[in-house]
């Protein structure tokens, strides 16, 4: 078959001109319009924020080792957990997969030479940097202690910390998300290669289409909310503070109208990656492709209708709570559909257990717990007991860390050879994913139990009967910390000492594997034409099986 971009497993790309060695000046990076270079700059930036957020997390776990507030003063502890949340949510989790892996891969996966709006893409990186810089400046000036949720009237009237500055930082950063979302939507609509129909799109792209909808429709609401907080704080206009004639519950409605869909921003891209990992490492077309694709859109749409489940005990009408609980139960269905389809994809596959696949399987196990605990919290009578306890902390860490972070790392490992042109150590990759899985569960499962026992969140000090489980959690966090730090070393090591990566190390059919590693600046030497179905591992795919098998046999011999 005369497929353009067909596989040459033997060709090593690093010698020829690619996006990495095409210009090495600082200017060639800072003024680049190449989505791949922008993705690399995002990768470095989100890693810095992840590291900082991780250090805050370590501090929290150390403080909670003992019941008394002894390592940190209470006020410092309040700032530490607030800043952990703000950095992780707004500056790591939300941009992590879309801005790094989505940015790098969406154009390649659909056969385009760049995003539709390359300058806007660079602009969104600069906006992210400006928002991040303002936030970091505010943290250095003294930080903020409102919790990442900024509940009023505490945030508008009572807190003496840098609420405004941090709010401005997050407000500005929001525009970065909006621009990225618009860019992805336009790109997916207009830039698909000939033959790349909607139902030939990899599920990673579908997930990002859904996420982009949330970016574009949801982020403006949190921007408006933060603006109103600023207006109330500066001009004393009564919006949320009852002393000024406002309504504090209105803030909670507006905040969660964005922030609940944002939870889906923080898990949908992860689900997209896991769909890729499961299908590709089982060498099987994903079971029920259309159902997995549309369940992403379903999550994005229904995600906008469930914000009130954060307000079951806040004095919202009981009848409103009923509606929100019902819709929350409905939104569990698309997630269940994904779980079942991933499992069914493994059936009769040819499954290999490389590091990325281990991340994919870990995700499935952890998301099972993350998803089910969501059902516990959506059940009205149980939520009354569980809300604002460690059960909630355990639940959303299972979703966001067990989901998004695990998927992000899985994706980073999966596409690392493509992005950098280097192979990392498979051995250390497997060791670290095992440590992360064990450490993660040891950290957060005890928190679910603590929550049912009634330990409230955001407590610097706690009654002594909760100590044993907190010690388990801190012990788990140290294992998790080691596991999460290891990739930093072996991935960087691979850049220097790693073997050059072939264009298609696992002989996979996606378009990204049909260009060299790392790809040229234009992504493909010749614009691709897609003639094969998505996740086609057979002869129709145009993959060069004979050469690949011969080479594999030669390596084994």
């Amino acid at each position, binding site marked *: 078959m005369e497929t353009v971009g067909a596989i040459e497993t033997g060709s090593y790309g690093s010698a020829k001109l690619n996006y990495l060695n095409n210009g090495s000046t600082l200017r060639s990076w800072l003024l680049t319009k190449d989505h791949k270079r922008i993705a690399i700059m995002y990768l470095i930036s989100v890693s810095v924020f992840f590291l900082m957020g991780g250090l805050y997390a370590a501090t929290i776990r150390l403080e909670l080792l003992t019941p008394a507030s002894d390592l940190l003063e209470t006020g410092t502890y309040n700032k530490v957990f607030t800043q952990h949340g703000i950095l992780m949510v707004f500056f790591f989790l939300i941009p992590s997969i879309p801005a790094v892996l989505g940015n790098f891969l969406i154009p390649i996966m659909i056969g385009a030479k760049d995003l539709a709006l390359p300058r806007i893409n660079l602009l969104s990186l600069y906006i992210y940097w400006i928002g991040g810089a303002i936030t970091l400046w505010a943290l250095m000036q003294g930080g903020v202690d409102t919790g990442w949720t900024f509940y009023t009237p505490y945030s508008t009237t009572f807190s003496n910390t840098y609420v405004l500055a941090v709010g401005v930082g997050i407000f500005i950063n929001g525009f970065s998300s909006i621009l990225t979302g618009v860019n992805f939507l336009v790109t997916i609509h207009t830039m698909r290669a000939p033959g790349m129909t909607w139902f030939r799109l990899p599920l990673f792209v579908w997930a990002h289409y859904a996420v982009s909808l949330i970016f574009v429709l949801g982020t403006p609401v949190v921007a408006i909310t933060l603006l109103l907080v600023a207006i109330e704080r500066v001009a004393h206009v009564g919006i949320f503070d009852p002393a000024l004639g406002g309504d504090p519950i209105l803030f909670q409605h507006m905040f969660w109208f964005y922030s609940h869909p944002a939870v889906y921003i923080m898990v949908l891209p992860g689900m997209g990656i896991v769909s890729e990992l499961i299908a590709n490492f089982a060498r099987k077309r994903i079971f029920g492709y259309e159902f997995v694709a549309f369940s992403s859109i379903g999550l994005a749409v229904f995600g906008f209708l469930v914000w009130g489940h954060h307000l079951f005990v806040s004095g919202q009408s009981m009848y409103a709570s009923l509606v929100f609980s019902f819709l929350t139960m409905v939104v569990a269905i698309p997630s269940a559909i994904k779980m079942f389809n991933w499992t069914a994809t493994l059936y009769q596959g040819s499954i290999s257990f490389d590091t990325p696949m281990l991340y994919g399987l870990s995700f499935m196990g952890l998301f099972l717990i993350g998803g089910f605990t969501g059902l516990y919290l959506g059940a009205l009578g149980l*939520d009354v007991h569980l809300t604002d306890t460690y059960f909630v902390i355990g639940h959303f860490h299972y979703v966001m860390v067990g989901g998004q972070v695990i998927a992000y790392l899985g994706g980073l490992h999966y596409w690392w050879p493509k992005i950098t042109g280097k192979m990392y150590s498979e051995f250390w990759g497997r060791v670290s994913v095992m440590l992360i899985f064990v450490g993660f569960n040891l950290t957060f499962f005890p928190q679910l139990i603590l929550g049912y026992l009634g330990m409230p969140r955001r407590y610097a000090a706690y009654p002594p009967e909760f100590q044993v489980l907190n010690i388990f959690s801190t012990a788990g966090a140290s294992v998790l910390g080691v596991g999460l730090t290891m990739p930093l070393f072996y991935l960087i090591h691979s850049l220097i000492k790693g073997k050059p990566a072939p264009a298609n190390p696992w002989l996979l059919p996606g378009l990204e594997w049909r260009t060299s590693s790392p790809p040229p600046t234009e992504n493909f030497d010749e614009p691709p034409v897609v003639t094969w179905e998505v996740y086609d591992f057979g002869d129709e795919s145009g993959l060069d099986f004979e050469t690949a098998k011969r080479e594999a046999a030669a390596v084994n011999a």
Partner: protein
Amino acid sequence: MQDTSFVQLFPEQASTVAWQVDALYGYLILVSLVFSIPIIVAMFYFSIRYREREKYATPREIHGSMVLETLWSIIPFFVSMSVFITGAIVYFNQYTPPDDSMDIYVVGKQWMWKFQHQTGQREINDLHVPVGRNVRLVMTTEDVIHSFYVPAFRTKADVVPGRYTYAWFNATKPGKYHLFCTEYCGLNHSGMIGTVYVMSPGDYDNWLSGNAGSETPVQVGKDLFENKLGCASCHAGGPQQRGAKLEGLFNTEVHLVGGGTAIADEDYIRNSILNPASQVVEGYQPIMPTFKGQVTEEQLNGLVAYIKSLSPNAAAAPAAPAAKKPDEKAPEAKAPEKAPAKK
């Protein structure tokens, strides 16, 4: 806290709704296991059975199955509906106080809990209640949002500035139980904890008599109403009075100027004192001045208790945790623009 096991897994049950919450929890654990175990078993089985035997093999392509997709959409849907319905039943039980409840006023404040008993006793961070009685909490806060949470009772309700919210419980076992603030409220949030002492009726009576209270809330309110604030000059109830008659008012429906009705519950009375222009009763002029800033939360509780006492036949509260009838929301929402007297 008599549990001495190394790691406790379940909190004590000490209220009439606790077992319901635990049963719901048990049901959800069962549901989680029934769904998770087959998925995990399948994952492991497939991973071993279909592990890679030949590099770059091409397994048989399977597109999907409409039957399976339908099944694993519909079964989870019905299961989640069963969770929804049982959850809703427990929720209504948790938030619908019985008519014969005894009221205790709760005022949250950074970082303490203040309690006023109907019999005049006042407490800070400690709350003494008798076993086996329905206790309704009428709660508000002087500053930020707090949340009243007693894990052993499985009850929790946010305490919101500018209005009343409600919680109730019926303690089933004498003992000492944790009271936590579960809405982050600033510096000493984790210190805003207290103890609920559930006492046998005899002990409770001893406690009451040993802690003879000062004035009861009704007495406080009566004094404010008749003397200190001069409410009686307009509201004493005569036919020529400029203010609405308050006898028999509590828990009745009132018709408001501009259409709409409201139930005259605690929150309505409170709001009428602080934002009188926001819900003027039909037939009266909007001439009442605001008392915002002139009365403390505790005095407000007294006024509310006194006005309630003028309606001896009214039942406790019609609905629960600040569950407002929709038509009641409308006038209140106008409050900001109509309450300019705030300085």
